[in-house]
């Protein structure tokens, strides 16, 4: 049995080496970054950060950046991982568009000897256990970040005040985590969450939901939004309802467009996950595993609360 396994592994190893295109100069590992939507500012920042890091460390590794068209295009992301496997990359740093659907292909990549690092959106633990895989997750704790933002809002409110949460796409793990984080903070402060609705991560949808909430709950004291685009939509709704200053708004992500609203106090707080560094953390973890400098392990990356000036 052992002999057989050794033979199979050796064959795979030779195949992997044989498939690799001949390169000039010293052998550098190739890292493939497979992202979610490159249409989303957050992932664009992430990819730019990774490219800058590679430019500074060009001698250490090669980088291939890939992304899908929109965040729900699962089959395309699976195809991308397959392409990267066919190219014979050494490591794949993956921001999965779905925490379950990508698990089988991740398992196949690992079986083919590729180091896989999970960033941004955590793969589902139960599904991973089901296929017998284990993938190190390098990323922020969205729940803790949202809780910290929620605490800033809670500090301005009194026990029993009414607030509402505008969440992301309900099936996304980070949307669930952020909502849970907001709820943790509100519960701890004895504040009443009167409604939780999805704004689908979008500005116009966030605005529509915020406007409805403001009509339906005239005593609303704050809108906790799971990303900054929805916070922008909510800010417009508060303004149009003539309630500027009466209803606090919090966001998440710290995008550039939110800065003016933070400056004039329309938005009280947001969270910065250092998006530009997220992929870099993942790449560094992958390189350490490849070179044997570190064993595969989960790593938590920082989330900072950014306050209104």
């Amino acid at each position, binding site marked *: 049995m052992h002999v057989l396994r050794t033979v199979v592994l050796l064959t795979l190893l030779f195949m992997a080496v044989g498939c690799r295109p001949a390169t000039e100069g010293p052998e550098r590992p190739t890292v493939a970054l497979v992202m979610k939507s490159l249409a989303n500012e957050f992932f664009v920042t992430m990819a730019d950060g990774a490219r800058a890091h590679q430019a500074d460390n060009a001698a250490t590794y090669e980088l291939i950046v890939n992304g899908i068209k929109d965040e729900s295009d699962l089959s395309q992301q699976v195809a991308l991982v397959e392409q990267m496997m066919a190219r014979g990359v050494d490591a794949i740093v993956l921001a999965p568009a779905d925490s379950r659907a990508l698990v089988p292909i991740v398992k196949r990549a690992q079986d083919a000897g590729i180091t896989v690092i999970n960033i941004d959106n955590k793969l589902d633990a139960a599904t991973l256990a089901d296929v017998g895989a284990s993938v190190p997750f390098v990323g922020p704790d969205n729940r803790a970040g949202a809780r910290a933002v929620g605490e800033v809002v809670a500090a301005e409110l009194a026990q029993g005040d009414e607030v509402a949460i505008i969440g992301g796409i*309900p099936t996304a793990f980070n949307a669930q985590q952020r909502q849970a984080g907001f709820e943790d903070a509100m519960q701890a402060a004895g504040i009443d969450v009167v409604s939780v*609705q999805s704004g689908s991560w*979008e500005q*116009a949808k966030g605005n*529509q939901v915020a406007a409805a909430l403001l009509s339906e709950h005239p005593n609303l004291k704050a809108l906790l939004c799971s990303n900054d685009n929805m916070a922008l939509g909510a800010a*417009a709704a508060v303004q*149009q309802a003539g309630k500027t200053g009466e209803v606090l708004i919090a966001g998440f992500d710290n995008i550039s467009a939110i800065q003016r609203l933070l400056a004039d106090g329309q938005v009280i707080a947001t969270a910065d996950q250092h998006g530009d560094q997220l992929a870099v953390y993942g790449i560094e973890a992958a390189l350490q595993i490849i070179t044997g400098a570190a064993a595969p392990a989960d790593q938590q990356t920082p989330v900072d609360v950014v306050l209104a000036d």
Partner: protein
Amino acid sequence: MRLLVLLRPYAALLAVLGGLVVLFGALSNHFLSPLTLRTLAGQIPPLVVVSVGMTFVLIIAGIDLSVGAVVGLSSAVMGVLMVQAGWSLPLSLAGALLAGAACGAINGGISVRWRIPSFIVTLGMLEMARGGAYLVTNSQTQYVGAGVQVLSAPVAGLPFAFWMALAVVAVAQVVLTRTVFGRHMLATGGNREAARLAGVTPGRVEFAVFVIAGLLSALGGVFQMGYLGSADPNAGIGMELAAIAAVVIGGTSLMGGQGSVIATFLGVLIIAVLQLGLAQLGVSEPMKRVVTGGVIVIAVIADVYRRKGD
């Protein structure tokens, strides 16, 4: 009596709309309030003007799948011109309208010149315009703020953009029913060959309609920006489906040759009231989609019965 006669063709739509308002009024605590009216008036202008363009396109037996992407592109262009290039509001607005008209001209020009179904051409434009929106903004939301929100400043209690959208509806209805161009549209959509034999140049009519649809989509992008105060490159995703739904609820045929802009406006109102009402009730996202789809189908059935009665 005269008013009743005028409203007769819209009875089914008005009944659905009235039913929704009564239902939400009964189920939620604060639906029947001035704030709800102001919110609706603020939110609907983009979909209203986009749907007016879509009505024209369906009347000539075409379809325009690119309207949502053009909304995104034109607001992106306007946002970048205002924020990064420092252009004034009128100039940036002109730039946005130009971008929309260009998209429409490409749609119309290609589908007329090579007789390619507009479904395919506008599907291509959907991708190109959305890609263009990401390119010009570098996928970053552009925040403008008060400089553009004057477009939704209240006039006589309701946002300026709302009155503009109403004006667009009125003008479009007059063009459709009282002008030569309107008759040519109806003739082209009804039977292209017969229209040609009767002396209409169908290609020219079709080209003009696609340019109008592009322009109105751009105007929708401008209104959306005026309402939200910033340009989101994702603006208008899926809006083509909402617009087609509104037009079809209004009884305009997908086969071309007939339609009504006023009925389209009522279709938009039905969709908007539904979305706002469901959000006020706090209905979950999946349930909202199930109900919205159901109401679209019911509204169309109601319209079929209304026409059988005629």
